């Protein structure tokens, strides 16, 4: 909504719309695959390839399981949300404080997601092992 309000044709909106539909199809299809398992076996496959002296055998095991699906799904969601924000909500025409007001809250949203996501690492691998051990030891 800046001073010179550009007249955008329909074209770009249909383009964004199609991109959103496409990404929705992608994210729904991917949910039927075990991406973590594919990643693990993919890494194993790469490691087994030997071209003379060249090999990638040093690659570590990657077993993030369902976390891979969550990661990819959230990345696709962030891309979709950005498209809506940038084009449909005309955030690209905004300036100054109109960008800041919402952008700051979005930044806090991602900060919160990051902090909460530490729980995945912390609670799963640490707190519950300790709790379990305490339960076994104390039992």
């Amino acid at each position, binding site marked *: 909504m800046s001073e010179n309000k550009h007249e*955008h044709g329909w074209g770009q909106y249909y383009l964004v719309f199609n991109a*959103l539909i496409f990404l929705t199809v992608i994210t729904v299809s991917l949910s039927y695959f075990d991406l973590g398992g594919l990643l693990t076996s993919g890494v194993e496959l790469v490691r087994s390839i030997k071209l003379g002296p060249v090999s990638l055998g040093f690659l570590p095991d990657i077993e993030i399981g369902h976390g891979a699906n969550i990661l990819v799904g959230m990345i696709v969601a962030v891309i979709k*949300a950005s498209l809506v924000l940038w084009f449909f909500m005309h955030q690209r025409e905004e300036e100054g404080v109109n960008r800041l007001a919402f952008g*700051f809250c979005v930044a806090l949203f991602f900060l919160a997601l990051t902090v909460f996501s530490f729980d995945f690492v912390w609670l799963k691998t640490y707190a519950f092992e300790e709790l379990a051990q305490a339960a076994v030891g104390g039992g």
Partner: protein
Amino acid sequence: MDNHAQEFAPSFHVERRNLRAFGMWLFLGSEVMFFTGFFGAYIVARSAALESIVRPLDKTLGALNTLVLITSSLTMVLAVVFSRRGDRKATGNWLAATFLLACTFMVIKTVEYSAHFREHVFPSTDIFHGFYYLLTGFHGLHVLGGMISLGILWVRNRRGDFDSHYNDPIEITGLYWHFVDLVWIFLFPGLYLL
């Protein structure tokens, strides 16, 4: 509202529009915080559980609702574009299309909810469905609020309240409506797919 055009310099309209948009952006910022709280609680509940708390939902209906909301975002942005041009008829038609798509969303949501109720799945059934009802319920309330605004806009547009110099309510309702879509973009994979 036609006299607005003669009375004020063009910059006035832009200033006023930007001020109103700022108010809406602030409100939407607080809405982000609102949903961050619930979404964050959902993440913590999921990560704190030893076994997955996730129960399967109907992906087809969820995906269908996603398509409906994305399409309604397109019709809404077209309503905004035509209202900027002062094309009252097209604006009204696209507003009506958005409203109908919102109705479609609510109908599909009702089908989902009633299927859950038939199977005696309630918010108290397990922690996943607690979050499911909390998140989709609040999102549904937002859709309902948007529908009321869209209805009022349609009537006001028909009455001739808006022209190319004054379409602020359509602009900021558009922002709100896209935000409702934005929330669903995260809820759908978070609850149905992952």
